[in-house]
């Protein structure tokens, strides 16, 4: 039997996140020492799970801040892929939350596949489309596998489509085929460089 471990043992340097930066993601104010000790215990006992909603929010803040500080750990612009540990999917649920989190923190552009895995074995399980639509209208139409959805421009949308191959058409852009999976498809309609 192998020892039980978890996400917090897989993210190098996670213990160096500052409590001030973690606080930015949290509604409740904490003594910095409480957050530092919480993070420290997560690192030395990575197999433990959150009991309460409050602990879940702290875990989430730690992960969000880690992704923000270390985008290169998850996204390689040269290979144009997002690679995430399987444990990250277990910690951040539902999948829509995880995909929107990755999309908003990684600053990807174009069509980027999201792979989940462990060590050397990764599988394509989702896709992020960060695009600048031709339309400047307030509302635009997105077609996913032929199904119409009207959405507001300049926002992030997630579609829980688990198909391996997904047909996507964003407003007046040409229809494209992307590879997806259980994480679904996330479409980022924010104009690059603008924080909407």
């Amino acid at each position: 039997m192998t020892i039980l471990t978890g996400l917090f043992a897989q993210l190098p340097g996670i213990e160096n996140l500052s409590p001030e930066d973690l606080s930015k993601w949290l509604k409740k104010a904490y003594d910095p020492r409480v957050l530092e000790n919480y993070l420290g215990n997560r690192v030395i006992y990575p197999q433990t799970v959150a009991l309460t909603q409050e602990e879940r929010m702290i875990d989430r803040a730690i992960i969000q801040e880690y992704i923000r500080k270390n985008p290169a750990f998850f996204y390689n612009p040269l290979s144009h892929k997002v690679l995430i540990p399987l444990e990250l999917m277990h910690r951040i649920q539902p999948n829509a939350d995880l995909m929107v989190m990755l999309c908003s923190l990684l600053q990807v552009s174009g069509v980027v596949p999201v792979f989940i895995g462990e060590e050397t074995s990764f599988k394509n399980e989702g896709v992020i489309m960060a695009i600048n639509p031709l339309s400047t209208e307030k509302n635009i139409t997105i077609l996913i596998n032929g199904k119409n959805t009207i959405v507001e421009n300049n926002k992030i949308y997630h579609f829980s489509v688990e198909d391996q191959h997904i047909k996507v058409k964003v407003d007046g852009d040409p229809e494209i085929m992307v590879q997806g999976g259980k994480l679904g498809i996330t479409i980022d309609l924010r104009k690059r460089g603008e924080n909407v």
Partner: protein
Amino acid sequence: MDLSANARIKIIPQKATHIIKQVPASGEVMVKLNQEVKSSDVIGRFRQTIGFRSINAPQELGVYPKDVPKYLMREIGKTIYRGELLAQKKELLRTREIQSPTDAVVNSIDPTTGIIMLKLLPKEVPVLSGVNGIVDFIDAQTGNIYIKTLVTQINGSLGSGKQQGGQLKIIGNQRSFTMENLIPDNIHQSIILGGALIYNETIRKALSNGAVGIIAGGINARDYKSLIGLSSFHLGYGNDIGISILIEHGFGALPLSEDSYRLFWENEGKFIYMDGNNRRILLPSSETDSILRVRKIMLPILQQGAIEPMENHVGLLSVGTKIRSIWPPFMGSEGKIASIDQSPTMLESGVATYLVTIEIAGQKVKVPYSNIEIVL
């Protein structure tokens, strides 16, 4: 449903190990290979020649710094022995005196502060065995003497510092916060047992008062980081700030466990060893037949300061298994498994997991199986 959890060997009774004692290069090793030694035996000696002691004469005599030389009873450059009169000021109703705290040479008086500096006289320092055992190896180059002996080993979660030996002094109870002001002055060459939480300031005060080790249930993460001086908790082993530190449970205020604390109580005032970098305390056996037992045991000779890999174990959980909670609200507490759920439960956090009912301090509580460790 078979559930497994990480297992930790917390207390290893009667373990054969090497205690390493060092005789500095200028000293003399007084034992031979395979010689049997008792804990009070002198196994080496060396001459200590370096060191100063400062005395705040203006404060003790109640005079201005510039006036201190007027009250000096021994000339600069002269030898003075412990207890002899160093300075004296006669007043109307009383006499203020400073006696030399050590054998020394009166070295100087600082004209600005009035502080008298004493240069310590060279003295012969014996190196005691500290354990009952057998001399297993003598490293002529380093002066390290490896004594094979039996100990009770207590393993911790976090640590720092090389192997140190000293008299165990208990200054807190299991749940106390060990503040800086609780550190006594007379702790030279001692290992201090604090309580549930120690602070950076506490450790530094203990170090400056001459302690060689400090033990507690928990420490704040920022204090630990500043002590290990490294950015990763996983890389933190292998360093030394002059004092060995061992933390039993983790970060925060975490009471020392009952069985460890009982062992410490039984060993208060005795000479013990600790190795922060390897996260362990060694309580030497005082049993007279321990030498007979170590005679039959062969041990590899490891370099001093070597970091031995932690033994990782996993075990199946079952009713009656001794466990330790590794997550709040019962973090550090030990108990037994009373029952194991056969189906997962959705926690308030949204995590679906199997729960185990554990008996801790007379109460039964349910916790996720991954938030406990098996205690071997």
